[in-house]
């Protein structure tokens, strides 16, 4: 089978990633709580490898943003600016700067939208329900083929085909789960006896 596989560019930049693909690859970061959950997921390997390159780049960006702004607040505090702000004896421009610095620690404007890849939940379910051997030999090859066809369709900008591929492989995944379930094994056993 001749395929043109889609390769994720190695640059750690969201802008280098084609627009029609971005929404399939990103986690949503709305707040410091959400960001902390994302870091937790990264630390415990719950994020798939193909996301981690992009996510880490944003991790460093947001960490730098938080550290710089926190540093700014500490400097303001050290030089008595915060006290003057509280007593309302402060230059209006400086007041705006201080507010902006504090706001920047908590506010995440214009976030790149990051969603989990659609196979991660299915794989987590399978990891919970089936053995490691079954996961490696049955379900991960299905996901590998899914990714192969999916990215090929996206590379050719066949968006509707890529959506149909999602539907088809979700069905295939469910069929495989059914066949590997105890009922599926029982049916297989009965059919062997019947032969």
């Amino acid at each position, binding site marked *: 089978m001749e395929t043109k596989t889609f390769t*994720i560019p190695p640059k750690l930049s969201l802008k280098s990633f084609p627009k029609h693909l971005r929404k399939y690859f990103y986690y949503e970061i709305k707040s410091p709580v959400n960001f902390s959950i994302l870091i937790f997921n990264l630390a415990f390997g719950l994020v798939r490898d*193909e996301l981690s*390159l992009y996510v880490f780049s944003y991790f460093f960006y947001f960490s730098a943003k938080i550290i710089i702004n926190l540093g700014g607040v500490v400097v303001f505090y050290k030089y008595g600016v915060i006290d003057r702000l509280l007593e309302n004896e402060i230059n209006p421009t400086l007041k705006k700067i201080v507010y902006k610095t504090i706001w920047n620690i908590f506010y995440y404007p214009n976030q790149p939208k990051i969603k989990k890849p659609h196979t991660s939940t299915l794989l987590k379910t399978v990891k919970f329900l089936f053995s490691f051997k079954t996961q490696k*030999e049955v379900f991960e090859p*299905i996901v590998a083929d899914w990714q*192969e066809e999916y990215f090929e369709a996206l590379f050719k900008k066949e968006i509707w085909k890529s959506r149909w591929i999602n539907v088809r492989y979700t069905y295939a*995944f469910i069929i495989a789960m059914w*066949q590997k379930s105890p009922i599926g094994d029982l049916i297989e056993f009965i059919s062997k006896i019947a032969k």
Partner: protein
Amino acid sequence: MNDNNEFPKLSRKEFKVLELLIAKGEMFGLEMVEASEDELKRGTIYVTLQRMGDKGYVESREEPRPTPEVGIPRRKYWATGLGERVYQTNVKAREFFNSDFAWGGSI
């Protein structure tokens, strides 16, 4: 050596898988699905391949993706010696069953 003297039966899907692997050598699961002309399905191929692997008819290995691709590595399959022997046995059995000799001459 087949210690239990049972005839190694192959299901239709297993027969098709072995037919493809013996004819074309190593293949990915998706390649087998596409070459089988709808006989093999995406949802069932890997369950079948796992069962065949447990019986010793096929083996597989993970094929890492070439850089800079990322993603789950795909699995490549090939028929073992036992698998080939079982396939040939089933082919001969089918030929005999379909031959005139099995029916005691032409009907």
